[in-house]
């Protein structure tokens, strides 16, 4: 029941935001999103490790087809719900310095998207999952289309078409699982059993259909071509939603819907997925090194980081999955921080071009400190948020295959190279005409960056509470996967 309320709250508040005028809308939206956050934190505090699933609700919805409105949270879901509810207020706050036309629709769409995202992370019914999956796409499409930058029509459409192509195949896979289910329901636990009992060919179809949907969303190389353009052209808040939360839908999908669903096909094909993910890391890192546009560079950085998380998700051992969950959380925070830094630079200088920037450090010391903190977390320095996740991921990958781990390990070196390179170009050197009157952070900007940095340090120094939340869930997931695959042999 609590989960359903958590989904309903941002949905209703999104619609309510439309009632206010454009000037008030942002405060209203911020308040509503904070309420949702408080609600989520409250649920997290009452989250015990005694059972895996909490706050479940199972209500008949379309009875004739065996579709239920079935939601609930385990540790993995809770982590992502916390991420979503924590980032949305920050994202809303990050827009306060901007003049936004038709603001109430903008904030309404953000809140509607939050509802859909929470739905994706908590759905326990395949049909419901699909509905939320698609619902999350529509608000972000309109956010990018209406408030986007140059060439937005073409780029946002490409984004939409790509993701829709993936999801339609996923829909077919879900229907296929459903019609093979003698009980005629979409309940996830039953579909696990159904998926494992399918013959290999059907499993392979289901695997690749799901894979495509998730790979496009993350994105994994070579399905990433929509991503850099979309991230660049979208309004920064849209980019934050896409990179901070929405791409986690893909990773979450892999660990919840793919990994335990078709064990035979998974163990056979996961290798290819891992290789693609690792190739993506190297590929995106090199492009990031060569990028001159700050926002596009961060987009490629995101591909590189996600590649590592995806590899961990497809490996599916305890360390790698724990790493995936904690890294999803800290990546979300990092990347939102990075895009916010980019937005601040852009608002003050009017350019994303790194070659014409420089010398900001001397003008804005506070801003520089924040940038460094987020940057260090992003290159996974120990005691920052990025470290613990990457460490666990590497342990997991190393257990799986040492050479793949070695190649993936290049990300640490390359990551340091492109991030420091960017920092040097933007912040160091002499101030020029673009940056000479660079103002330091104002209040609302501080209010965004301080929580981000606090979270980065918290996860870096004391990640245990977060790991504790997800551990039983990850173990249960692994158990399900091994059980379903054992059924067949």
């Amino acid at each position, binding site marked *: 029941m609590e989960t359903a309320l958590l989904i309903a709250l941002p949905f209703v508040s999104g619609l309510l935001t439309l009632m206010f005028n454009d000037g008030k809308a942002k405060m209203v939206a911020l308040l509503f999103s904070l309420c949702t956050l408080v609600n989520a934190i409250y649920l997290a505090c009452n989250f015990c490790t005694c059972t895996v699933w909490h706050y479940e609700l199972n209500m008949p919805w379309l009875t004739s*087809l065996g579709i239920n409105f079935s939601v609930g949270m385990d540790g993995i879901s809770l982590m992502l719900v916390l991420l979503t509810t924590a980032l949305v207020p920050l994202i809303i706050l990050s827009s306060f310095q901007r003049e936004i036309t038709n603001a109430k629709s903008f904030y309404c769409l953000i809140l509607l998207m939050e509802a859909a995202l929470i739905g994706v992370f908590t759905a326990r019914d395949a049909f419901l999952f699909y509905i939320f999956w698609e619902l999350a796409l529509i608000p972000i499409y309109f956010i990018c289309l209406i408030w986007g930058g140059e060439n*937005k029509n073409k780029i946002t459409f490409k984004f939409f078409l790509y993701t*829709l192509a993936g999801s339609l*195949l996923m829909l077919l896979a879900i229907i296929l699982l459903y019609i093979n289910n003698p009980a005629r329901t979409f309940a996830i636990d039953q579909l696990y059993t159904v998926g494992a009992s399918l013959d290999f060919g059907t499993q392979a179809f289901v695997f690749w259909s799901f894979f495509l949907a998730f790979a496009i969303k993350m994105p994994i190389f070579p399905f990433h071509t929509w991503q850099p353009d979309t991230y660049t052209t979208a309004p920064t808040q849209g980019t934050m939603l896409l990179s901070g939360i929405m791409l986690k839908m893909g990773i979450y999908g892999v660990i919840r819907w793919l990994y335990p669903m078709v064990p035979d096909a998974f163990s056979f094909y996961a290798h290819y997925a891992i290789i693609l993910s690792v190739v993506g890391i190297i590929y995106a890192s090199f492009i990031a090194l060569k990028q001159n546009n700050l926002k596009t560079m961060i987009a490629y950085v995101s591909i590189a980081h996600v590649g590592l998380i995806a590899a961990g998700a497809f490996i599916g051992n305890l360390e790698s999955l724990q790493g995936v969950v904690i890294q999803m959380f800290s990546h979300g925070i990092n990347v939102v921080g990075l895009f916010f830094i980019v937005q601040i630079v852009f608002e003050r200088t009017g350019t994303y071009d790194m070659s014409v920037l420089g010398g900001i450090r001397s003008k804005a010391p506070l801003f520089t400190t924040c940038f460094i903190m987020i940057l260090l977390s992003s290159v996974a320095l120990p005691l920052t948020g990025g470290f613990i996740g990457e460490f666990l991921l590497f342990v997991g990958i190393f257990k799986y295959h040492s050479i793949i781990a070695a190649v993936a390990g290049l990300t640490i070196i390359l990551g340091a190279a492109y991030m420091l390179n960017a920092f040097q170009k933007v912040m160091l050197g002499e101030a020029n005409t673009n940056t000479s009157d660079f103002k330091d952070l104002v209040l609302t900007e501080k209010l965004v960056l301080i929580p981000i940095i606090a979270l980065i340090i918290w996860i870096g120094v004391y990640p245990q509470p977060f790991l504790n939340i997800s551990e039983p869930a990850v173990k249960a997931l692994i158990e399900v996967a091994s059980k379903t695959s054992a059924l067949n042999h």
Partner: protein
Amino acid sequence: MNVLIIISILGIVAMVSEIFGLRKSIWYIVVATLTGAFIINLNDWDTARRYYDDMVFIDNYAIAFMGLLLFLAFVWFFLSKDQYESDQFNTSDHYAQIIFSLTGALVLVSYANLSMLFLGVEIMSIPLYILAGSRKKDLASNEAALKYFMMGAFATGFLLFGITLIYGVVGSFNLSQIQHHVSEVGNLPLMFYAGVVMIMIGLGFKVSAFPFHFWAPDVYEGAPVMISAFMATIVKAAAFGGFYRLFSVCYTDISGHWAGTLSIVIGTTILIGNTLAVYQVNMKRMLAYSGIAQAGYLLLTLLVLTNASANALIFYIASYAIATLCTFGGLYWVIKFRGNDALDSFKGLGKSNPILALAMTISMLSLAGIPPAVGFFAKFYLFTVLLEKGFMPLVLLSVLGSLISVYYYFKIIIKMYGTASDDTSTLYISIFNKAVLIIILVAILAIGIMPNFFLGIITQ
């Protein structure tokens, strides 16, 4: 049966209303009668009865389709109200012909005899030949009327020929007797199969399936916008109702003989309809091609022929028709304000009239099959029914078709929200008409979220 009589009388009343000075009130009479007929129709639920020596058979299938047609007509009268208030056309003539056409449509979904099938098709079509040309001084409108008439006559020829051949074998027009002959007697001569194919061609024209789709874009483009709306929704729904009824009652046992041909027709219809729609710059033509593509999806139900597929057909046609009606309703206003029906006239609509733009957006999302609009659920249900019988290749093709369709449906959305118009004046629509659009929108979303009630209508 009462419904058929009531609607025929309503047609006559509409025709003579001008003589008795009822011009102002005819709209109210029509709407009230349609509501009444709708209720009477629902009262017959679960009382399958045959009328007039088994000419008409009102079973749940017929009642569901008649209910749908009456509802669509009801919505149509609301959407077209403004057009007839602006005195471009002779209201009572138009209303009378629309209602006669509706009568034909009702016959077409409730017949139990091939002669009634023929009569239904003709009663439905003939008024539309006239209506398509009702802009008398407009060349395109005249062209549309002539083309529609020629093509329609041609199709009728095929239909009649097919009916004759089947009569030649069975010795009866009666559907049950044909069904009996097919399943019991067996040993059917080639003539019978030729008849089936001829009927398929005749009805293929009516539902605008490839390769009999050529008339649709020209006719939709030339005819007045709300007449095109009527053709694209009510006529199409009725044609599908008739098509499916005939094949599910009579030809299920010999589906091996026609399913292959039909599969090819379906595949090409989906591909051709969707691909050609991409290249259209005129909204009405685009909707015509979209209608052709959607006809392909609808025909898929004929390959299954179970109760579930009948449900899928009704649900899909309802979702298609309501979204298309809403689109045409929106298009009417755009044409009124901007003067033409080119896609470019949708530019900047998101700013100049948010409600209208929202209506168009939701309709487009529904047609493209994106949740939570009803179109998604219709597609989902259709695919489930098909995959259950193992039509994976055709379903994959349909998915491909839907992806292509997103391109042209979203073209409208992008024009409305992504581009600015030179004409930035706010467009004024009266409260009444806004309310009509909003109610349709809510219906599209609500049925999409709560389709439970409408599923499982047909259980035998």
